[in-house]
């Protein structure tokens, strides 16, 4: 079966040859092995053309070996299981995996859009800002076509079958990156007894060691890795997360890690119910952090450097060692530093012909140069690869001698055929997390890279990510960072000997940011810096020419670093070319801002389990199950679900509400009002405190008395309302609106604690303790009497607006003679555990009175008939009690919160919007809620508006519709006609009336 895998080496690699598997790419089937990535398997099969570039549609192949890959952006899977934009270099091969290239139409190979490449010069940086402006209306059309070219992969077409979860974790030391440096740091910390989390985004620990033939203590380096990992796994307080990417480093040493837990095929095999967690988001609070992310190799910037077959040297070594894949037969290696020499050795060792090492440094390499010579690999020092031939695949390298002068022109004097060009432009430490955490960067001129500088949070960097390029230095640096971390935690660092490595000293790197070409930088063939966004040297020069000189402007004008790799491959080259163009030193140009996510993170993983039914709690009353069984549709009120109406025999909302309303008006109804907020207020200063926050005179209330009360914000606007009952001299019971319950308690506590700590008052929330059953209607008293109440309920013994404790049907309750419907009514407060029982008993006994359960909608109609407001519906944040006609509630004798604001000029305006009632002139039209009110019809915009409808219902009791509205100066305009002007409808003539439509004198509730 390996027959198809022409580039697969017969031996070696960390693949599992006993587990061959098949996958497909662009519809064609291929073979690979467990342990392959999609990229390595494709390379093994000789597939080199993997996509097209974003703007110019140039053919592209694999460049890198991991997160820096800009080209191999794949669509994996289909339908609900589709995964857009995966990097082939990061996709673990699994059986049946189906991948497609994301760019190129009709196919990757023959892309019609490729013609765009010829227009490259017109399509320079920012070209779209300069055109498509005329004719004005055409932008829509232009944009239509521009958008068709947008994006790489496709979003799935149906909801995600995967499960995600969040996990909170705490540790002493978090180590990001499990290469030699990270492993060493983790070992050090763990041996000191610290709680350690070690996360690495790869499948296996080892980092760069996975990809090389390194030795530690005379044995293969991976043996040392295996030992370290085994030891860490044994430690009780150490957590190892492979496939775990630290993607965010936030303030206060909070880090976020996304861990891929299961492969797609394995997850799907389990079926929906038992589907395992696909990805887990770790939310980690770490005391110290060691960043050991390693370094990214940089490509070199020469003409046509984007041709498939031009690859990072370290990636080539990785494919050879880790995956046993030889990406080319005849290679040229092009470098400005020593590291790529190892790739040449690796290539030769794997049986490839290394036609030449082209080294831009006149002096060539250090000690490793000798080994290369021994292998017979020719080295062209002081030379550069200036251009390549080949379109869909490199066919040869054009080589020129170079004097070292940055922008000079060169002449190609030598062409070497090759199908692989391995390049190295040096290494950039992955300072991403360090920078996200607010750490500074320092330019190192000798190593030509930014190093992590001063940190803002308790973190440290180690290894290649800290500019240590040799294995020995990485191990030592990991040890140092691990020790520093545990010392900072007050632990004793263990003694660990640095394992021995056998490396020879390297010759220094030499700057080569842009490889000179035969023509100047504006006229030579394209030299790519950001492969994904087709940003070239010429684009950067154009941006500078046009005044976009700041690195952030250049980024935004040329899209440098905007792609899915976020500049991991090209940014430093881009900044250096910018610096050279501006004639400034690189550190003065600086970098763009590093941001999360380090690599892209699925929305689903970020969302975790709080989606669907768990998106937000649904709060349920003790009677919820009864309501559900009765078939009541629910209304969402804040987090609560409340029954909206109780339909019978297929009634619709209107029929049910009319029936419920009449039942209350004519006999008796019952409503679950348990969601009201309830607060117990106690203490010698209770009156004093309530006087300060409520507007009315609290001290005049005798024990046993209830009063309607409102709370104002300090801005004088109505914040909440409810009934207040005085239970004793020093004890009150407050109710609040459903939505305001938590807010009011917090507000009261805030004033008590911050402003008036001297007041002796205790507040206790009883919202959950008591359920509230509102029994309303002329037969409500009879009903309770029938049920069995141990206190007299007649008008004289228990008058309106009073409270009593009692025993009802043998259960202890508080009875409030308050009414939100205008009828004789009792609000029964009972411990929630007993509420279902009492409700059932009431329903039983109530049969005689046709006791009718009613929902929020009926409650709204009944209260609107009385002209009672609902805070939040008839008010918004701009309504004062005066606007509502509640002056009678505002004490003149005392100060209260918000009082001063009512005296501001705007609050004294006569033409403020005031609460009124409305009747439609035609009689039968229900005016839409939200409708704006105008004085005259037929005006042209902008039409002055004088108010709006806040509540509107058909009143079954009155036999006609009613509405509440806020109208400018409304109270003085009774009898006037206005027009409601709902969108798309004929204006409705309405008359301003008193908001008290029903029983305005209140006789019915006083009986």
């Amino acid at each position, binding site marked *: 079966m390996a027959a198809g895998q022409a580039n697969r080496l017969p031996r070696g690699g960390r693949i599992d040859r006993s587990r061959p598997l098949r996958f497909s790419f662009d519809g064609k089937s291929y073979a690979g092995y467990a342990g392959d990535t999609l990229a390595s398997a494709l390379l093994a099969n000789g597939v080199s053309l993997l996509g097209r570039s974003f703007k110019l549609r140039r053919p592209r192949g694999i460049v890198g070996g991991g997160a820096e890959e800009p080209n191999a952006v794949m669509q994996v899977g289909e339908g609900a299981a589709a995964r857009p934009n995966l990097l082939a270099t990061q996709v673990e091969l699994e059986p049946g995996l189906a991948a497609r290239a994301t760019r190129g139409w009709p196919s990757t190979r023959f892309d019609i859009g490729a013609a765009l490449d010829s227009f490259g010069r017109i399509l320079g940086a920012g070209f779209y800002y300069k055109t498509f402006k005329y004719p004005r209306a055409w932008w829509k059309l232009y944009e239509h076509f521009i958008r068709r070219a947008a994006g790489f992969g496709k979003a799935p077409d149906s909801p995600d079958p995967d499960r995600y979860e969040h996990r909170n974790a705490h540790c002493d030391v978090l180590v990001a990156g499990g290469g030699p440096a990270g492993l060493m740091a983790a070992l050090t910390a763990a041996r000191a007894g610290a709680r350690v989390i070690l996360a690495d985004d790869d499948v296996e620990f080892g980092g760069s060691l996975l990809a090389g033939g390194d030795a530690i203590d005379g044995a293969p380096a991976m043996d040392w890795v295996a030992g370290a990992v085994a030891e860490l796994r044994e430690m009780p307080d150490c957590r190892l997360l492979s496939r775990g990417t630290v993607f965010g480093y*936030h*303030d*206060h*040493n*909070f880090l976020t890690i996304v861990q891929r837990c299961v492969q797609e095929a394995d997850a799907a095999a389990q079926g929906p119910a038992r589907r395992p967690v696909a990805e887990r988001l770790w*939310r980690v*609070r770490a005391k110290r952090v060691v960043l050991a992310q390693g370094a990214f190799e940089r490509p070199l910037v020469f003409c046509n450097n984007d041709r498939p077959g031009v690859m990072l040297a370290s990636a080539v070594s990785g494919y050879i060692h880790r995956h046993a894949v030889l990406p080319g037969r005849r290679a040229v290696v092009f470098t400005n530093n020593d590291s790529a020499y190892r790739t040449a050795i690796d290539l030769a060792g794997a049986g490839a012909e290394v036609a030449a090492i082209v080294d831009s440094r006149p002096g060539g390499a250090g000690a490793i140069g000798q080994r290369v010579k021994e292998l017979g690999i020719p080295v062209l020092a002081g030379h550069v690869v200036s251009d390549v031939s080949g379109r869909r695949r490199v066919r040869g390298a054009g080589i020129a001698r170079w004097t070292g002068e940055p922008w000079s022109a060169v002449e190609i004097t030598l062409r070497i055929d090759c199908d692989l060009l391995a390049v190295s432009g040096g290494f950039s430490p992955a300072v991403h997390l360090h*920078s996200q955490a*607010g750490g*500074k960067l320092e330019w190192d001129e000798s190593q030509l890279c930014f190093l992590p500088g001063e940190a*803002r949070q308790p973190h440290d960097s180690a290894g290649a990510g800290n500019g240590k390029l040799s294995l020995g230095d990485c191990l030592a640096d990991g040890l140092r960072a691990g020790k520093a971390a545990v010392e900072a935690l007050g632990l004793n660092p263990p003694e660990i000997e640095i394992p021995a490595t056998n490396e020879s000293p390297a010759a220094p790197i030499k700057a080569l940011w842009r490889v000179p070409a035969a023509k100047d930088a504006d006229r030579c063939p394209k030299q790519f810096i950001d492969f994904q966004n087709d940003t070239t040297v010429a684009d950067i020069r154009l941006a500078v020419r046009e005044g976009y000189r700041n690195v952030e402007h250049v980024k935004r004008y040329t899209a440098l670093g905007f792609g899915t790799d976020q500049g991991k491959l090209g940014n430093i080259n881009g900044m250096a070319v910018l610096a050279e163009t501006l004639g400034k030193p690189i550190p003065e140009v*600086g970098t763009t*801002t590093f941001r999360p996510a380090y690599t892209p993170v699925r929305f689903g993983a970020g969302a975790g389990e709080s989606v669907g039914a768990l998106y937000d709690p649904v709060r349920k009353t003790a009677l919820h199950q009864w309501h559900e069984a009765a078939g009541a549709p629910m209304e969402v009120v804040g987090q609560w679900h409340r029954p909206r109406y109780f339909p019978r025999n297929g009634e619709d909302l209107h029929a049910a509400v009319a029936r419920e309303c009449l039942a209350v008006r004519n006999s008796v109804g019952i409503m679950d009002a348990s969601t009201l907020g309830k607060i117990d207020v106690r203490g010698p200063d209770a009156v004093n405190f309530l006087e300060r926050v409520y507007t009315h005179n609290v001290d005049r209330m005798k024990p046993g008395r209830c009063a309607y009360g409102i709370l104002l914000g*300090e*801005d004088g606007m109505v914040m909440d309302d409810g009934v207040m009952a005085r239970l004793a001299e020093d004890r009150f019971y407050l109710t609040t609106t459903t939505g305001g319950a938590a807010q009011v308690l*917090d507000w009261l*506590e*805030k004033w008590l*604690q*911050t*402003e008036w*700590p001297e007041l002796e008052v205790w507040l206790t929330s009883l919202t959950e303790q008591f359920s509230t059953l509102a029994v309303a209607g002329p037969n409500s008293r009879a009903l309770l009497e029938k049920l069995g109440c141990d206190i007299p309920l007649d008008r004289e013994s228990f008058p309106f607006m009073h409270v009593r404790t009692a025993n009802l049907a043998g259960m202890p309750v508080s009875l409030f003679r308050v009414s939100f419907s205008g009828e004789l009514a009792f609000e029964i407060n009972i411990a929630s555990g007993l509420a279902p029982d009492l409700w059932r008993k009431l329903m039983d006994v109530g049969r005689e009175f046709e006791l009718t359960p009613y929902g929020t909608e009926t409650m709204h109609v009944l209260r609107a008939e009385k002209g009672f407001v609902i805070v939040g519906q008839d008010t918004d944040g701009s309504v004062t009690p005066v606007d509502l006609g509640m002056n009678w509630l505002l004490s003149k004798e005392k*100060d209260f919160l918000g*009082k*001063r*604001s009512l*005296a*501001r*000029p705007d609050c004294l305006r006569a033409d403020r919007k005031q609460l009124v009632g409305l009747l439609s002139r035609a009689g039968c039209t229900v005016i839409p809620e939200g409708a704006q009110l105008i004085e005259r019809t037929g005006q042209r915009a902008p039409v002055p508006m004088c108010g709006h409808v806040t509540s509107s219902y058909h009143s079954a009791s009155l036999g006609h519709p009613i509405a509440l509205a806020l109208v400018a100066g409304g109270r003085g305009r009774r009898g006037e006609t206005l027009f409601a002007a709902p969108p798309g409808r004929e204006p409705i003539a309405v008359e301003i009336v008193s908001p008290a439509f029903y029983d305005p004198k209140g006789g019915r509730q006083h009986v």
Partner: protein
Amino acid sequence: MLLIECPWCGPRAETEFSYGGEAGIPRPADPDALSDAEWADYLFYRSNPRGAHRELWNHAQGCRRWFVVERDTVTNRIAGSFRLDETVPVPASAAEKQPEQGD
């Protein structure tokens, strides 16, 4: 996600707390004595510094106590948490921050 030290419960995650705005704005003793502008200053005007900020937090999901935190509004570094009945030390420097890259 900040780690905020509740003076009673110790360090807890930001999500357990609610924010109460600038600390140390006492309610005027006699609001009626204030001009509209003075009242507006109390109601709406805030010092909103770039740098050290004294602010109120409530341990809403914990002990429900209000307390004062001194936090740097640029770095989010917290200099200390204080109970309301503690005398809060004078800040070392309430001076405005100098510009900082990447804030």
